[in-house]
């Protein structure tokens, strides 16, 4: 494989993994936000 072709194939594979990793990070941060919100709402209900 010539170096230019290798660069494009490598870029293609990296792009695929980067998109998956970005989505996993989004899921993780959403998870953390939801857990914090759940704790906050639970405390609010307990107070009432």
């Amino acid at each position: 494989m010539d170096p230019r072709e290798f660069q494009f194939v490598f870029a293609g594979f990296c792009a695929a993994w980067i998109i998956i990793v970005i989505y996993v990070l989004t899921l993780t941060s959403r998870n953390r936000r939801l857990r914090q919100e759940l704790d906050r709402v639970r405390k609010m209900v307990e107070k009432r």
Partner: protein
Amino acid sequence: MRDKILYILALVGLVLVSWTLYKVWFVLPKQANVAAYQILYFHVPAAFTAFTGFFTALVMSGLYLKTGSLKYDALAAGVTEVAVVFASINLVTGMIWARYAWGIWWTWDARLTTMLTCWLIYAGYLILRRAIDEPTQRAKLSAFLSILGCVDVAFVYKSIEWFRTQHPSPVLSVRSGGGMGPGMEAPIYWNWLGLACIATVLIIIRMRQEEVAREIDSLRRAAHAY
């Protein structure tokens, strides 16, 4: 138990994808007639995974419209979100391949345009869900949009047969393509299976978040009821 299944699925997915990468780089003979053909091993399975997701979302949306159960709506939303991620992989890897093979990042041919339209419809679906607060109204509109999106998926699939496109014609033997050498096709399906396992894990995690969001909603309602 549920966590164990999740870890096993993720592991199976990663092993299958790694095995395909190994086959593509070190075992398969070079396809002299296709430039940078290795990208195909992510580009095609990502499209298959996305389409499987969109079809599942269609079934779930249909079930929601039939039964009115919000559980199906939540499932359709989770599956669609993950399918959009894989549709993005398909579009981006396709653009990188096009830059190498055709010298351009993009062209408005039938396959590329219908795929971009498909991505925009489902991205619109996700935006629509954020814009509507009322659950029943949100579920109904989302279900109709999901059905509309699936019509476009059919167009994407058939576009390379119906129109003369710059995009290559079918190469897989299941579509009477036969453009790949012996042993070249199987890794595409193995990678599809691997990506499908990873997608399933992501969908399960997304569904758990939906459960937490529903719990927050019901607690909020209970708090306001006092």
